[in-house]
C-alpha cells in the first residue's frame, strides 16, 4: 500500500516523464507564442478522462481495470487484459527508445541504444520485484532531487529572458485543436497509473486529479520558459529545446556547461515512467494468471521491451508520425472507449441483477 502523497508524486513524474523533452518542440511549433496554453487545455482534458477512470474504479473498489474487465465480461475480459498488457509494453518500449535517442543525440553518441534499454530494464525490474511500496518510496525520495535542480537550472537560464519572444500574446488560445496528440501523450497514457490505484490507502482520486493538474501546470510553465528563452522560431525546430536552453546557460564565467545535471534529471524522470509502465504490465500478468514466481515474467517482459524499443520506429520521422497522428486514436481506444464500455456493462449487469433480486 502506498500513501496519497506518494501516488500524487508518481502521477506528476509519470506525466512529465518523456514529455519534457519529446514534445516540447512540437507543442511550440504548433502553438507558437501561445503554446504554453496548450498543456493547460490538454491537462483539463486529462482530468476529465481521469474522472471517467475514477468512476470505473469506484464501481468496483479495490480492483484494477484488468480485474474489472474480468468482472464485467468474464472470460472475454482476459482479452482486454492482454490488450492492456500490450499497450503498457508499447508505451514502455517507446519511452525507452526516446531515452536512447536522446542520449545518442546529446552526450553519448557512440553507446549502442540497447545498452540504455537493458540497463534501464534491469534496474526497473529489480524495483518492481520489490513491490508497490518500494516504487512509491523510491519516487518520493528522488523527487526533491529532480524538482529543485531542474527549476534552479531553468531559473539560472532566465538571464537570457526576453518578453518580446512571447508577444503578441493570447492570439491563438485554441491552438490545442491543431495538436490533439498532446491529449493522448502524455495525458491519456496516465491510465497506466490506475493499475496502482487500488494500492493507494485512501484519497487516490484526489491525488490523481491533483497530480495531473500539477503536471499540466509544470509542462505549461516549461513551455512558457522555453519560448521566452529561445523564441518560438528556434524552440519549434530544435529537437530538445530544454537541453539547448540549459546548454546556453552562461552564468558568469564559472557556471557553464551544466547540461549534464539536466540529463540526469531527465533520465530519472523517464526511469520513473518506465517503472510505472513495467509495474502495470507486470501487475496485469499477475492478475491474469496469478503466477507463483515473479522473476521469470520480468525477464520475459524485459526481453520483449528491449526488443520492441529497437523496432518501435525506424527513424525520427516515423517517431513524429507515431506521436502526432497515431497516439491520440490509439490511446483513446484504450483509455476512453474500453473503460466506458466496461462501465456501461457493469451498470447494466448490476441493474439486471438488482431487478432479479427484487422480483
Amino acid at each position, binding site marked *: 500500500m502506498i500513501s496519497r502523497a506518494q501516488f500524487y508524486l508518481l502521477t506528476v513524474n509519470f506525466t512529465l516523464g518523456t514529455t519534457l523533452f519529446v514534445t516540447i518542440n512540437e507543442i511550440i511549433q504548433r502553438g507558437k507564442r501561445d503554446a504554453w496554453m496548450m498543456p493547460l487545455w490538454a491537462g483539463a482534458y486529462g482530468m476529465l478522462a481521469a474522472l471517467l477512470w475514477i468512476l470505473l474504479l469506484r464501481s468496483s473498489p479495490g480492483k484494477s481495470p484488468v480485474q474489472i474487465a474480468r468482472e464485467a465480461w468474464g472470460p472475454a475480459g482476459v482479452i482486454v487484459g492482454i490488450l492492456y498488457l500490450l499497450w503498457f509494453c508499447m508505451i514502455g518500449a517507446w519511452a525507452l527508445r526516446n531515452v536512447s535517442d536522446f542520449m545518442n543525440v546529446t552526450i553519448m553518441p557512440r553507446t549502442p541504444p540497447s545498452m540504455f534499454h537493458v540497463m534501464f530494464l534491469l534496474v526497473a525490474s529489480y524495483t518492481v520485484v520489490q513491490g508497490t511500496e518500494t516504487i512509491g518510496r523510491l519516487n518520493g525520495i528522488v523527487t526533491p532531487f529532480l524538482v529543485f535542480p531542474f527549476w534552479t537550472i531553468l531559473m539560472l537560464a532566465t538571464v537570457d529572458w526576453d518578453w518580446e519572444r512571447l508577444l503578441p500574446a493570447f492570439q491563438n488560445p485554441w491552438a490545442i485543436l491543431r495538436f490533439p496528440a498532446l491529449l493522448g501523450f502524455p495525458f491519456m497514457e496516465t491510465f497506466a497509473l490506475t493499475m496502482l490505484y487500488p494500492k493507494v490507502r485512501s484519497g487516490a482520486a484526489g491525488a490523481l486529479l491533483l497530480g495531473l493538474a500539477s503536471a499540466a501546470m509544470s509542462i505549461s510553465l516549461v513551455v512558457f520558459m522555453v519560448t521566452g528563452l529561445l523564441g518560438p522560431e528556434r524552440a519549434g*525546430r530544435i529537437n530538445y529545446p530544454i537541453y539547448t536552453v540549459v546548454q546556453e546557460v552562461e552564468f558568469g564565467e564559472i557556471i557553464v556547461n551544466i547540461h549534464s545535471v539536466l540529463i540526469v534529471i531527465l533520465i530519472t524522470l523517464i526511469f520513473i515512467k518506465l517503472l510505472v509502465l513495467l509495474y502495470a504490465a507486470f501487475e496485469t500478468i499477475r492478475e491474469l494468471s496469478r503466477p507463483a514466481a515473479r522473476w521469470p515474467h520480468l525477464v520475459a517482459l524485459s526481453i520483449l521491451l528491449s526488443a520492441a524499443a529497437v523496432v518501435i520506429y*525506424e527513424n525520427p520521422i516515423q517517431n513524429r508520425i507515431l506521436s502526432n497522428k497515431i497516439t491520440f486514436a490509439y490511446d483513446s481506444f484504450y483509455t476512453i472507449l474500453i473503460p466506458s464500455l466496461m462501465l456501461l456493462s457493469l451498470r447494466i449487469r448490476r441493474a439486471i441483477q438488482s431487478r432479479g433480486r427484487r422480483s
Partner: protein
Amino acid sequence: MSRRQRAAAAVLALCAALLSSCWDKVEINDLSLVSLAGLDRDPESGIYTVYLQVINPATGASAQDAPGGEQAPVYTYAASGKSLAEAQVTFYKLLPRRMFLHHTKAVLISERAAKQGMRDFLNFSELQPDARTSIPLLIVDGSIDEVMRTFTPLDWNPADAITSRLNLLHDYAMMTGRRIELRDVIERTEREELIVIPLISATPKTGDHSNWDVKAEINANRNQLRVGRRAIGAVIENYRMVGRLYENDLIMYHVLIGEKGQFVRRFPFRGGHITVIMKTKRMERRLDWKAGKPVVRLRLRLEFSTIAMKEYFPQTLDELKKLEQHLNQVFAEELKTFVDKTRRKGWDLLRIRSLLHRKAPNLPDPDQAASEAEIKIEVETRLRGMGNLGRLYDGAGGEP
C-alpha cells in the same frame, strides 16, 4: 641434528652457489626504446638506410619539471649498410644504449623502397624475435629522411601522433582501414590478395624544422607530418606498391571490403547536393553462377543521420523513402564506377579471386574467372540517427 640432516643442509647451502640472481639484468636506463622505425633502400647502390626514433626518457611524464625538460622528446638515428642486419649493428656507432624494439609503434617505408618490393624487409622483421609485426606499416610520400626528422605538434612523439591519427581517420572518416599492419601485408600478399596501406608525408617547412623551435610556431599545418599528401592509400600487390588511392576512392574501398566506421559524403541531389554522415552496418557477399560465369553480389547496409544534412530535411515518410532510394541508387552507381575503374587497372581490390578460391576451389583458371566475374552492388541506406534540429531554418540566404 643428525648427520644426515647436516649433510642435506650443506648440500643445500652449496646449491646456493648455482643461483644466478639477476646477473643478466638490463636496466631500463641501459635501453634505447625505439618508438618509430623507418626504412629506405637506394635502388641503384642497393644500400639500406634504417632510421630509428628513440624516446628521450628525460622528457617523459615523470620528468616534466626535471632539469632538461625542454629537450626533444625523441631522437632520430640513421645507419646504413648493404643488408639490414649490417645496418642494425652499425647503429652502435652512434647509439649508446641497447636497441629495444618491442615498443615500436609504427614502421615507415620510403616510396622508392616500397616500389622495389618489401619482401626482404618483411622477412627480416618476421625473423627478429624481438620485433612485433602487429604494428601499422606506412609508406612515405616524399623524403623519408625529412619525415623521420619532423616533430608533430600536440602529440610530440611522432609515433603516437601517427597511430592515433590512423585510428581517428578510421573511426570518423573511413580513410584508413584496420588491416594495415605488417602482418596483414604478409598475410594478404601470401594469399595473392591486394592490400591498401596509408601514406604519410611531411608538410611544408618554415625555419629549422628538426629543431625544437617549431614548438613556437602557431601554424600547425606546417612543420609536421600528415597522413597522405593528395593520395592517402598505397595499393600493395605482391609486396610492391603499385598505385595510389585518393580520398573518396579510399572511403569506397573501405566500405566495399566491409570495414566498420562512419564517413561523410556529398551526393548529388535535386540539382544540388546533400551531405550525409553514414555508418556502415553490414556487408554481405554472395556468389552465384550465370552461364558458367561467376556473379558476385555485394549487399551493403548503411545507416545515415541527419546531423550533416544542412541542405534538405525530409518531413514525411514519402519524402524520406525517396531520399533513401535516391541515396541507394547514387551510391551504388558510384561504388560500381569505382570498382570498374580499379578492375580496369587490373586491381582485384574486392578480393574476388579469394572468394572464388574459397567458394569454388576446383576452378581450372581462377584468375580468368575472377577477371570475368560480374559484380553487382546493392546499397540499402536507412535514416537512423538525428541531429538537434527537427526542421531546418528556411530563410533565404543559403548556398546558391
